[in-house]
C-alpha cells in the first residue's frame, strides 16, 4: 500500500467539494452542472476503490462499477432532457427554468 487511506479520502473529499462547487456555481449551463455531478461521483468511486484497497476486498470496486453504469444512465437521461428543454426554451441556463415558484 503506497498511498495511505487518509490521502485518498482527502483527495476524494476535495474532488467531491469541487464537483459540488461546479454544480452550484455553473448554473448558467446544465451541461457544466452535469460535469460537476460527474466529478462528485468520481470522488465517490475513488473513495470506494480506496476503501477496497484498504480492506483488501473487491466490494468497493464492484460498487464503483455499478456507479459508472448509473452515471452513464443518468447522463443520458439528463442530456435527453436538456435537448428537449432547449427545444422549448432555446436555453440551457437553469435560472431560466423558473416558471414554478412560491
Amino acid at each position, binding site marked *: 500500500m503506497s498511498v495511505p487511506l487518509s490521502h485518498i479520502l482527502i483527495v476524494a473529499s476535495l474532488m467531491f467539494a469541487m464537483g459540488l462547487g461546479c*454544480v452550484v456555481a455553473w448554473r448558467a449551463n446544465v451541461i457544466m452542472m452535469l460535469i460537476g455531478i460527474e466529478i462528485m461521483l468520481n470522488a465517490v468511486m475513488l473513495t470506494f476503490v480506496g476503501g477496497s484497497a484498504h480492506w483488501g476486498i473487491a466490494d468497493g470496486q464492484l460498487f464503483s462499477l455499478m456507479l459508472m453504469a448509473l452515471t452513464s444512465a443518468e447522463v443520458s437521461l439528463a442530456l435527453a432532457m436538456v435537448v428537449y428543454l432547449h427545444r422549448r426554451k432555446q436555453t440551457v441556463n*437553469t435560472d431560466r427554468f423558473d416558471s414554478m*415558484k*412560491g
Partner: protein
Amino acid sequence: MMLATYLTLMLLFPLLGGLTCAVAGRKLPRVLVESLACAAVFGSFVCALLTALSYTAPTVVTLADWFAAFDLVIPISLYLDPLSLSLSVMIGFVCGLIHLYSVFYMREDEDYARYFALLNLFVFAMLTLVLAESLPLLYLGWEGVGFCSYLLIGFWYRDTNNADAGRKAFITTRIGDTAFMIALAWLFQLFGTLSVTKLNGMGFLMPVSVLTLLGILFLIAAMGKSAQVPLMVWLPDAMAGPTPVSAMIHAATMVTAGVYLLARMYPLIAASQAALAAIAVTGAVTAFYGATCALAQRDLKRVLAYSTISQIGYMMLGVGAEAVTAATFHLLVHAFFKALLFLGAGCVIAAMHHEQDIFKMGGLRRTLPLTFWNFLAGAACLAGLPLTGGFFSKDGILMAVWHKGGALYQSLYFLGLLTALITAFYSFRLVFLVFGGGNGHVHRTSGLGVMQAVLIPLAILGLFGGVLNLPGYMGEGLLTRLFAAIPGGGAVEATHEQEIVMQAVAGALALAGLAAAWLRYGKGRAHRMQEAQSPPSPLISFLANGWYFDALYNVLFVRPYRALAGILWERMDEGIIDDSLDGLGEGIGSVGRRLGRWSTGRVAVYLISFAAGGALILGYLAWLVL
C-alpha cells in the same frame, strides 16, 4: 294540618289564576278572565282570614322540597307568625280590592289577559315573600314581585318611557337583591342553614361586627326594594304603570317588602346597634328626602310616589329604633291609606282622561264628591291629622325613636317631626289643588261607580286603623299584644304622659301643615296657578327633580357604563384580544409566505441550500468528532 291547607291554597289560588290568565287568557272571554283573577285573590284573602282564625302560635309549615345539594337543603317551607299573618291578611284584602278596581279601570285596554296574569302572579309572589320560611324562597317572592313590577310598570310598552321606567326599577332593585344574595351565601357559610327561624335564633353565635355587616347587606337589599336613599330613584318613574298597579305594588305591598325583610331578620341583626343605627338613619333621611321632593311635584302620582318613599322611610326608622311593631303598624295603615290615595288618584286620572298635572285640575270636589271625601280621608291619614290611623302609627314610630334616646336618635326624632310637618303641608297642597277651586270639569264619569265604591272600605280602614294598635293610655294595642311574643315586638315602655305630650306635638304640627297648605293653596290658589305657568325657581326644580339624583347617577354610572361597554367590546374584545390573535395568525401566515419565497424556482438556489445544509451538518459532526 288545616293550616297547611289554607296556606297552600292561599298561595295556589293566585298562582293558578295567574298561570291560567297567562296561558289561556287571550282565548278566554274578558269577563271570565276578570272574574277569575278577582276570585283568585279573594279566595286567597279568605284563606288568609281562615288562617288567622286558626292561628295559635308561630308555626313552620314545610310543604315540599325545592332543591338539595349536599348540605344545602332548601325546602319550600312557610312561616306563620303575627308579622307574616298580619301582612298576608292585609295583602289579600288590599290586592283583592285593587283587582276589583282594575276591572273597571282597565276596561278599555285590550291586553287585559296580560294585566291580570301579572297582577295575580304578583299577589302570589308577594304572599310567598311574606310567608317564606327559607330565605331562598323569600328571595323567590322578592324577585317575583320585582319581575311583575317590571312588566307592569312597562305595561303600556309601546311608549319607550314606560319601558325605560320598568327597566330602571328592575335594575336598581337588582342591586339591592344582590346584597340579599350575598347575605344569603354568607349566612349559609356562617350557619349552615338558610331557615329564617333557625337563623333568627343563632345570631348570638357570631361577633357583632359580622352581624353589622349582615345587617347592612339586608339594609341594602331593603334600600333597593323599598326605594330608600340612595336607591330610591326608580320609584317616581315607576308611576308610569297603570294607577292600580302603582297603588298595589308601588304603594301598598311590594315597596314595603324591604321593611318586612328587616323586620323578619330583626332578631338576627338586632344585636348590632350599628346596623340598627344605619337603618334608622337611612329611614329618617329618606323620609325627609321624599317629603321635600313631594313638595314640588306637579304630577299627581309623583307626589304620591315621593310620599311613599317618605313614609317607608318612617317605617325603616321604626325598625332602626327597635320598634318592629310600630313599623309594622305603620306599614299596615300606610298600605290602606296609600292604596286609597292612589286609587282615588286613579279615579281622578280616569275622570280627567289621563291628565296628571295637578295644576291643570281643580274643582273636582263637586264633580267627584265621593272621590273627594275618600281622598280627603287618605290625605288626612297621610298628614297624620290627630286620631286618624296615620296619626297613631306615625306617632308610634316617633315615640320609639325618642325613647331610644341618645344624640343620634334624638336628632332623628326632630328630623322626623320636621318631615311630619312637610308631609301635612304637601298632602293638603294636593287636596287643595286637585279638589279645590271652581271650575270642575271631567271627561268621563262612567264606570267610576265601583271604582269609587272600592275606596270606602280603604278609607274606613285608614281612618280607623288606629284601633289596631292604640297607644297605651287609650288601652292596649292589638298588634302589640300579638307581637309581644316576637323579638323587638314589645311595646315601647313610655309613660302615658310622655305619650300624650308627644302626640300633642305631632298633632299640632300636622294641623300647622294643614293651615299652611290652606293659606298657600286654598286661599292663594289663583296666585299659585299663575305661578305654575312660569318657569320654576331653582329650589323648586331641585326638589321637583328629586335633588337631581337621576342626573347624578346618569353621569356617575349609566353613561360611563354604556361608554365602557362599547370600549370594552370594540377596543378590548375585538381590539386587543381578537386583533392580537388575528395578528398572530397573520404574522405566521406572512412568515410562511416568506418561507415559500425561498422556493424561487431556480434550481441553483435549491442546490446552494442543499450544499449549505450539508456543510452545516458536516461542520457540526467535524466539531463533535475532532
